[in-house]
Every structure is written in structure tokens, then in C-alpha cells.
């Protein structure tokens, strides 16, 4: 990432890696309707939410759209690509969100919304 910031969200209770990724991807997709997802390990590309087998993923790149994916492929962590991709890493304890600039309004919203979803709505649930 260009600079980059890691935000680690530990989730409570019954949440697992597949669920953490699912929730985060779904929220980002709501912001970026033309999103494209890439499996960070195998490189597979998913163009729609229904295609994604979250149980077999632990790390994904979520691009704003196909153009962003192509630009990242071509230029990598170039300033022109800033805030057009979110990097998600999940395990059974928590989710790490990597963004270029956490003060960017879109990134800030995405982070807040994912944090709400992963912890806020279930904060009353006892952690295991």
C-alpha cells in the first residue's frame, strides 16, 4: 500500500474467519457496487458476491472496480491508486483491514462500518 494503515478488529463470540471476511466484503461492496475481489493467495478473481467461497479465503484484495484492479496490476502501490483498494486479512480471532489512508472519508466510513458490524451489534454477546 502507499504508506498504509493496519486496523485490527478482534471479534467476539462465534465469529470466524469466513464470517469476518464475508461481513467486511459485503460492506465494502455496498460502497463500491462495481467491486472486484481477488484472492490474495491464489490470485483468483471474483466479480460477484455470490461467487465467493469465504471458507477457503483468508486474505483478499477488494478493488473499487475493474479499472482499479488493472491499475494496481500495472502500477502497484502508486499514489494514483490510493484508496482504490482495501486489503483484508482474516483469522478466527479477528480481521485486519489495510488501507492507504485511514483519514480518507471513504476509508474512514468503511472502517467504522465494518467495526460496527463485527463488534458493535454483537458486543453484548459473551466472547468465547
Amino acid at each position, binding site marked *: 500500500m502507499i504508506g498504509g494503515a493496519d486496523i485490527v478488529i478482534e471479534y467476539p463470540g*462465534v465469529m470466524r474467519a469466513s*464470517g469476518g471476511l*464475508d*461481513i467486511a466484503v459485503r460492506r465494502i461492496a455496498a460502497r463500491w457496487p462495481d467491486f472486484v475481489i481477488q484472492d490474495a493467495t491464489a490470485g483468483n478473481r471474483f466479480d*460477484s*458476491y455470490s461467487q465467493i467461497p469465504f471458507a477457503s479465503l483468508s486474505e483478499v484484495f477488494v478493488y473499487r472496480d475493474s479499472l482499479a484492479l488493472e491499475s494496481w496490476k500495472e502500477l502497484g502501490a502508486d499514489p494514483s491508486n490510493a484508496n482504490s483498494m482495501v486489503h483484508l486479512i482474516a483469522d478466527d480471532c479477528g480481521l485486519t483491514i489495510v488501507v492507504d489512508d485511514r483519514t480518507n472519508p471513504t476509508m474512514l466510513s468503511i472502517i467504522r*462500518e465494518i467495526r460496527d458490524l463485527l463488534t458493535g*451489534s454483537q458486543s453484548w*454477546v459473551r466472547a*468465547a
Partner: protein
Amino acid sequence: MTLLEPQDRWFAILREVNLDSLFSEPQHQAFLSQRLGDFGQAYARHVRGVTAGVLPSTASLADILIEHERNPHRVGTLLEAAAFQCSPDILAMIWMTLLGARIESLAYEYKRGEASLLRATLLLPDGQTERTFESSDLWDVALFRLATLSKADDQPVIDDFYPIWIPPRHPADHDLYVATAQGDFSAKDVAPSGSTLPHWQIHEVYGKQSPRFVGRIDLQEGGPVFDSVDVVAPERNRALLERTWHALVRKYGEQILTHKPTPHAGR
């Protein structure tokens, strides 16, 4: 009808969300089988007429098992909703949402002794097709327990459903079980058959990992003796053992804990 086939597979899936003990009785297994069958029919009814590829056209038991391989948390959510006795129509609504439909509106109206009315509208993943759901069954309100909540630009968003943490009940191979503020603990009497006093092994029980052996409680004339197995922080474990002991006494009575033989049935 008893537990769904293949039984081992379904038990493992139920265990993932700590519903295995809830569905250990034949009548509860029959309920689950029936409810999931009815859900499959309700889903097929609601998805009828939708363009192919937008959503799966069926939600059979086999479909659920396949989805479990891809996205186990979705199946956990469906099973919890079934355990809350949500109606087949609302299960279909939850399943469609889990598969990518968007909740456009959700309304609940309640009048004591008279009405409990839930209404939901989904926008399917094609971005055009809407489906509406309505239920007057009070148990369907449990759907709100599974809803994920957030605010987007300070506006409310209910995006999805997710399984909640359900504490495990009576883990196998234990005699007693107690939930405390410090965690859930099980106790097993491992004293030899000729012994006149019980000898308790205490495990801390977790939902997502194997139980942790905390220590032993021996009964002696002066009362219980707490023996921590942790050599690094024995005091912490000893305090846990002591708290667990008092919680067990409160729950089961001192007689059960201090006298042999331990009645295993009915606990």
C-alpha cells in the same frame, strides 16, 4: 424422522454453533428436519420467477451442505434461526439475504395480546427484483437477534445476519456444568469406583476451542482442596477452581459434590 442424513455431518455442523445438545433429542431432531424441509419449499416458492443465476433456485438439504463447505457461517445462521423457531418463510428471507439479497425495509408491529407482525422487503442481487415477506408468528422476531447492525454516514444499515454466540450445554463426558462470570466450567468425578469421596477434574469450556484443564478438587475432612495444574500462574487457576466450586455448590447443592456415588443421570 430423526436427525438429517448424513447424521455425522449434520451433528458436526450443529456443534460448530453449539446447537448439538439442543438437537440431541429425537423430537427436536424431527422438528429440525421438518422445519428445514418446509424452509426449502418456502424458498423455492419465493425464488420462483427470478432470473436464473440471480439466486439458487433451490435450498434443499444437499444445497445447505454444499453452502456449508463454501460459507459455514451462513449455515450456522440458518440453523440458529431454525432453532429460534423462525417460520419457513422468514428462514427463506434470511437465506436469501445471506446469499446476497439486500434488506430494503424491515418493519415490526406489536400489540400486546393481539398482534405481532413482521414485514420485510428484499432487493435481490440483480438490483431490480423485490420480494416481500410477512409473518405474524412471534418467534420470527428472533430474526433481530441475528441481524448485523451498522451506520453508514450516520444512517442505519442492516446488512446481513450472523450467528450469535450460544454457550455450549453439558459438554459430553462431564458430570456437572456451570456458567460463571469467569467462564463456563465442567466437572467430572474421576475417583476410583471404590473411593468413598469424589475427586473432581475441572475444565474451562470454550466455544471455539477444546476445553482447558484447570485443575482438581479433592474432598478431604477439612473441606475441598484446590489443586491447580498450571505451574506458571497457579494462583489464578486456584482462584478459578475455588469460584467454580462455589458456583457448583450453589447450582447442585453440597451433597452432590461431596458424596459418592455421583448420580450421572438427570444433570
